[in-house]
């Protein structure tokens, strides 16, 4: 109880530290005000909105693809939709907020949250999924288990951090940048760059290191991989760690962008990232980047041109169309079933 009170106190302190900014659906009002016209290229209002929304979408899409990578890697190895991934993402944002509230400083707090969230991924795998693998149980059992896990994580977050929306510091806001009359928020650029760098690092890990080789081998045939001396369970746990860590980075980025954090935040973002992963071909890394960008851009365009209430459904409509036209996603490999 004592610790609970302490947490609540620190939460309140952190809330009072950062003042709330006005935002409509996550986009700053600030964005729309105070443009300066330059000579030469002077875009019309519609063009400007389109370019701004494009950047908005790209930034969101990169963050989505960071989460999508987690879905994609786990699906590639286990053929399992990890429904707890959205909750893991929400958990990471809360951890970051908690450690920021403990006066750790922003960057160390985020690093701690990345490590802890990665650990959470391992814990989920070791406690819930590994026993099922050992028993060779049916795929739907693991699916329900991950739904149960997401239930547990999300409700524990609600108990310890309240259900209300908490403000998260905008730790990478360097003001507006002006490109020939188009104002672009520096947060969006930071998001793009950081996500891109991390995705490159992830690709390097998977394609160049020995562990990555083990991961790819397990993905192709886990039985054969274990016969070759690969510790399959370790590889799977490592995959969960990577997925959790990348979700934590996405969590810090998206929370810093929207500046709100609440326990239910993982649900919709999780589904969208999942849609992104499937769109690009689940199990393919660069596929989930493309998928994330498509989902992010289409979402921000739908929010401007169709109304903000449609922003969430666009991802699913695209997803269903792609699945019907090309069931394995844009870059997915076809499963060959041998009899």
């Amino acid at each position, binding site marked *: 109880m004592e610790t609970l009170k302490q947490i609540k106190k620190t939460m309140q302190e952190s809330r009072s530290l950062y003042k709330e900014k006005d935002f409509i659906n996550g986009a700053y009002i600030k964005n729309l005000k105070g443009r300066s016209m330059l000579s030469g290229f002077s875009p019309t209002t519609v063009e400007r909105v389109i370019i701004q929304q494009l950047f908005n979408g790209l930034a969101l899409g990169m963050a989505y693809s960071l989460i999508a990578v987690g879905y994609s890697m786990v699906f590639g190895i286990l053929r399992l939709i990890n429904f707890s991934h959205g909750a893991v993402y929400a958990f990471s944002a809360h951890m970051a907020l908690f450690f920021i509230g403990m006066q750790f400083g922003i960057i160390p707090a985020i690093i701690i949250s990345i490590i802890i969230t990665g650990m959470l991924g391992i814990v989920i795998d070791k406690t819930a999924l590994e026993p099922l693998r050992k028993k060779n149980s049916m795929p739907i059992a693991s699916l329900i288990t991950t739904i*149960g896990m997401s239930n547990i994580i999300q409700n524990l977050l609600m108990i310890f951090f309240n259900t209300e929306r908490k403000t998260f510091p905008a730790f990478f806001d360097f003001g507006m940048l002006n490109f020939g009359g188009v104002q672009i928020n520096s947060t969006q650029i930071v998001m793009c760059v950081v996500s891109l760098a991390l995705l490159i690092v992830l690709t390097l890990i998977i394609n160049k290191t020995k562990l990555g080789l083990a991961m790819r081998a397990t993905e192709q045939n886990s039985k054969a991989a274990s016969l070759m001396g690969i510790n399959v369970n370790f590889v799977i746990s490592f995959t969960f760690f990577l997925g959790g860590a990348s979700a934590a980075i996405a969590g810090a980025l998206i929370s810093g962008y929207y500046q709100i954090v609440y326990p239910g935040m993982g649900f919709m973002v999780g589904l969208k990232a999942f849609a992104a992963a499937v769109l690009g071909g689940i199990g393919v890394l660069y596929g989930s980047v493309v998928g994330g960008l498509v989902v992010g851009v289409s979402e921000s365009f739908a929010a401007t041109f169709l109304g903000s209430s449609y922003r969430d459904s666009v991802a699913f409509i695209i997803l269903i169309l792609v699945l019907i036209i090309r069931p394995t996603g844009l870059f997915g490999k076809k499963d060959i079933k041998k009899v």
Partner: protein
Amino acid sequence: MDKKMKKETSNNLILKFETFVDKYKLLLAAVCTVLLLVFPYMGVNQYILRIVIMIGIYSMLALGLNILTGYTGQVSLGHAGFYAVGAYTASLVALKLGANFFVATLAGAALSSLCGLLLGLPTLRLKGTYLSIVTLGFGEIVKMITMNWDKVTNGTLGLKNIPKPVIFGVKLTLSNNGLYYLMLVLVALTALICMLIIKSKIGRAFMSIKEDELAATMMGIKTTQYKILAFVISAFITGIAGAFYASMIGFIDPNSFTFDISTLIISIVIMGGMGTIRGMFLGSAILIVFPEVSRFMMDYRFVVYGIVLVLMMRFRPQGLLGWKSQLPYKFPKLARQELEKQDKSILNTL
């Protein structure tokens, strides 16, 4: 050795239970019927009656999903979508056209099964997890439509004053127990229809698709047609449940049909035991009553709910009542008569 012994005794327990049930089948059925019929007069209040009706509704939902997931093996994560389509269509037909409850319910179920048909068509190309993803997307899209189509669905405010069912001029409500009996009739009909389907050629085709789709195709079963049929039947039953729910509560909004409802339905199916009909009733009873009983646990009850799901999957993934029948195989009546004609001694040996 020890483990094996244990398994055998547990099998025997099931065998004993099954022979007991088989022996006193009629008596048990009569007792259950009487108990269910007099239940509202056993001094229960409206709160408990409402929960029991909810159990009935979720049994119907689970029976519907069970046709699709339990017997045909197609996992749907978007059944809340069908539920919403049934509920909204029936309430709109009742509110705007002033139709009778039964007409409205049929309309709801019909549109829901049409959605099932449309959603079933991608099964031509999709398998396993990908199919589940499409159903998930379907559930979300239905929710978005109900939220945004303000003119018809009244957006997030939802539909109010949905009329209660009326039979021969009598309005069925909670207080005159009419809704309870209507629920009983609907659940009994649904269960009967499910049983008949499962025992028919269609049911055997469904099960063969679940076991091995390729082998089923080789045996001349048109798997695509049967999968779409399973979707349609499942959506129809779910639509009826939705229409009844809307009429009972009298108010629906998009938040009544979230992804959580879909997971709740699939949890019921799995908890009770996929591919059984008895399991659906037990599963829904447990999962509906649990949040009500565990109110003393406050916020922790949904954590416990998650833990129960995880433990269940780990230690009894086939569900609580998901055992295979231990009784010796009985020939169907007609086959038995044929055999009797041919040779009576064969029957004795069997």
